């Protein structure tokens, strides 16, 4: 690693005011969270912030030297854009550090109405090439892009060299196999849309059925997503991590195994590739989880930045018992 490397920002999730305070206290450089309602891509019951809570969150974070990023990153449906515009106006009015945007119409509104507001391009915008990112930068003065989880480190480096804005990359947490912002699988099965309703594999459509031999079938709507034998870990049924059959092959994970992303080992490579911000997934996670993940990554990032080898056993322990992956990042063989 060269000596000129700037220390990357550690960007952490918060689904509730309590987990926001936990993340700040555990050493997050920035926290991202969304408003209650359909304006963000994690529109789950019991999650997210009211305007009052978001206002207090901004104060709590900024008083402790952390940044507050507000995700307004779902796609407004026709006739309802006023809800998203109000969320944008609200976020600007309480001085959030950046707004994370996915919809191109909302990017236009935000950049025209609040030209001084810092804009980050959400992973949901699916900007995976320098051409796409440069277009967004040119039209909306995007300051940072959150890259889709489908690029290799080598490709990230190339992207970095060809764009004017910062790069934020996911390093830990749940990983979807489909390009973000471009998946209607949930809607095909449930009638609820990931892009329009902010849900993926909604819990009220999930069922678990155990047979007499203790085999557990996980189901989304009418479709069996997986069948788990005794002793196996039953993952939450999402379509892209299910087990299926095709003509010549039976019972295989057609898209991806039920794994989560862990790039602890690739941190130095990512930093060297020009990644400004390292993002942890999981706004739906508990306070305890946030505390241990954030503090572990805080130590790891600090150690790497000081040229030391960090102790990453805590981070590896966090995914123990669950399969993990480095996903697309190490090489094109993933594809």
């Amino acid at each position: 690693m060269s000596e000129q490397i700037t220390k990357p920002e550690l960007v952490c999730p918060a689904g509730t005011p309590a987990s926001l305070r936990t993340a700040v206290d555990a050493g997050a450089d920035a926290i991202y969270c969304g408003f209650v309602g359909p304006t963000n891509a994690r529109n789950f019951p019991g999650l997210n912030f009211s305007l009052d809570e978001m206002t207090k969150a901004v104060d709590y974070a900024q008083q402790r030297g952390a940044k507050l990023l507000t995700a307004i990153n779902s796609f407004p449906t026709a006739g309802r854009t006023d809800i998203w515009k109000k969320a944008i106006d609200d976020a600007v009015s309480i001085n959030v550090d950046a707004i994370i945007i996915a919809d191109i119409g909302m990017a236009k509104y935000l950049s025209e109405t609040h030209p001084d507001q810092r804009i980050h391009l959400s992973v949901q915008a699916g900007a995976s090439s320098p051409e796409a990112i440069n277009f967004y930068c040119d039209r909306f003065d995007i300051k940072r892009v959150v890259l889709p989880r489908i690029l290799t480190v080598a490709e990230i480096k190339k992207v970095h060299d060809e764009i004017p804005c910062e790069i934020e990359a996911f390093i830990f947490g749940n990983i979807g196999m489909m390009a973000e912002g471009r998946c209607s699988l949930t809607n095909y099965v449930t009638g609820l849309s990931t892009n329009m309703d902010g849900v993926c594999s909604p819990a009220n459509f999930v069922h678990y059925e155990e047979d007499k031999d203790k085999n557990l079938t996980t189901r989304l709507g009418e479709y069996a997503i997986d069948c788990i034998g005794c002793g196996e870990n039953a993952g939450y049924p999402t379509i892209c991590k299910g087990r299926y059959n095709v003509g010549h092959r039976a019972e295989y994970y057609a898209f991806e195994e039920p794994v989560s992303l862990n790039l602890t080992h690739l941190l130095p490579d990512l930093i060297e590739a020009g990644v400004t911000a390292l993002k942890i997934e999981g706004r739906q996670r508990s306070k305890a989880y946030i505390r241990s993940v954030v503090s572990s990554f805080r130590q790891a990032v600090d150690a790497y930045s000081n040229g030391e080898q960090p102790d990453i056993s805590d981070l590896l322990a966090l995914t123990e018992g669950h399969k993990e992956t480095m996903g697309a990042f190490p090489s094109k063989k993933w594809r």
Partner: protein
Amino acid sequence: MTNLNLGPNLYNWPAEIWRDFYLQLADESPIDKVFLGEVICSKRAPLFEPYYEEIVSRLTKAGKQIIYSTLAEITSNIDRRLLTKQLSDKNIIIEANDVAALLSLNGAPHTIGSYMNVYNEDSLEFFAQNGATNICLPPEMPKSGIKQLNKTAKKLNVELEVQIFGRIGLALSARCYHARAHELTKDSCKFICDEDLDGMDLTTLEGQDFLTINGIQTQSYTCLNLVNEINQLQEIGINNFRISPQSKGTIKATIVFRDLLDRKIDVDEASAKLEEEKINAPFSNGFFYGVAGNEWRV
């Protein structure tokens, strides 16, 4: 003017079958616009190149308008080179399927494909001001959304297009699921996707038909069919209808839908004719009604 259009072929048909399909289309189909160009996989594109000139010439002579569709997911260097090539001919109309294409179009007139996210009036307005003349809506858009957006489109002088027939594109990835099914990778794929003319059927562990694999794309198992909804779409003011090609029944479907749009046959007759020659999958229309896309409502 009501346009009946044929979307880009999304599958890796053996090149001769591909050529013969478009020659037959030129001779027998009343289709108005034909979208050519590789949308799914940059590795497939060179396979069809030897036949492009012949196809374009025959389709043009038959009075069809040609529009060139660009790649829907751009990650690798091969993808980027293909996109640059697709955009290099300034004399053809481009259908952009990824924001990446918009950079070099630089405001020149173009169309927007169904892989772009146009869900609301503001994004519609942005694309229109950026040079879009025609926008094919995402297939998950319900009737209420189509209706609302068409009001804005009229004001902006943009034509909206809706897919009415053929399997539905549901998701894109950087990973090739065809290659994965054969324990290969995208780079070492041996082009095994050419074995499945309508994609590879994916069933659940209980044997239920579920989805269709087409390289990096995941499609519906069901075949979209909005024959019963054509009147409603026309009442809303939609005048551009898209059929997505399948290996069977596509040319017949173009004739049936043209006759239906011209009021030469009624919905019942059109329905019966579409049922006669189709791929081995049930019809669906759920997205139009805002319910699960796999559902079929009569």
